[in-house]
């Protein structure tokens, strides 16, 4: 019994230390402020203004949205994105047209309209804010997509 106790307590100490270190690095939006105090609000990050299309970083990456989409409604009656990006409208609005891949269901069957699983655009396509990356990374796009 005693023999086992020593490495266990050591392991627990190690775990506790790791958790403490981890807790200091990864913070919630309220930072390190205790629950009993009011925290400073997180800094407001405005959405990036309209820009040219943003280059993709890997094959199959859903293109980022290079424009403001505030107030753009996508619901059962109406999809605001489609008012520019549909095959009917894209030319007049000089928008990128919706990809042909979005007309396939999960079994690969072709549909006449946008597949329901592709209907909610912002599930995959996201606008950007001008913020620093939370975690630095050194990812480099493959040659095929970096012009």
């Amino acid at each position: 019994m005693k023999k086992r106790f020593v490495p266990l307590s050591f392991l627990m100490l190690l775990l506790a230390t790791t958790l403490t270190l981890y807790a200091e690095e990864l913070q919630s939006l309220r930072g390190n402020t205790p629950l009993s105090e009011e925290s400073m609000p997180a800094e407001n990050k405005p959405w990036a203004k309209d820009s040219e299309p943003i280059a993709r970083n890997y094959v199959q990456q859903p293109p980022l949205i290079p424009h403001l989409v505030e107030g753009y409604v996508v619901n059962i009656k109406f999809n605001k994105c489609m008012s520019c990006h549909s095959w009917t409208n894209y030319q007049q609005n000089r928008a990128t047209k919706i990809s042909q891949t979005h007309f396939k269901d999960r079994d690969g069957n072709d549909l006449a309209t946008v597949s329901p699983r592709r209907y909610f655009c912002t599930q995959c396509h996201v606008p950007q804010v001008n913020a620093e990356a939370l975690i630095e990374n050194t990812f480099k796009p493959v040659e095929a997509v970096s012009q």
Partner: protein
Amino acid sequence: MKTSFKVLVLGFIIGVMFWGGFNWTLELTNTESFCISCHEMKENVYMEYQNTIHYNNRSGVRATCPDCHVPKEWLYKIKRKIQASNELYHKVLGTIDTPEKFEAKRLELALHEWQRMKSADSRECRNCHDEESMDYTKQGRRAIYAHSEEAKKTDKTCIDCHKGIAHSLPANWEQAAKDAGL
């Protein structure tokens, strides 16, 4: 002679009070609080409007119901007010007194309003948004193109593109609007 002068003054005073009172009452019916005193407006279109930029924005300049839906010029205003008596009639009938009934009528009502706006060259939009005051260089790329080239090339008016900016759009509105030439 003395009596008829008194009567004239009396008539004058009544006239002033009538005209003042008439316009005062007219303005009372031209407020947001009057519009949303009907639950039809309050529970449908007013709720939707509260999520839009015309309700809440950077500079705090808000457009309320009559700013968009009632003309500012006196004659046009009176005309619209007389037409609005039809709304009282349907209020009594209860034509849109549930969200479901409203939803069923939404396309028809929206088409009416788009038609009214288009035929007046978006007069009520332009009461606030004057093209002369508009600085395209402060707008996004898409807006710059749309306002400076597309709109002029095709002779479009505000409502041609800016449908559904303050209220939810009806289902299948795009085809219906196209069919109605809007």
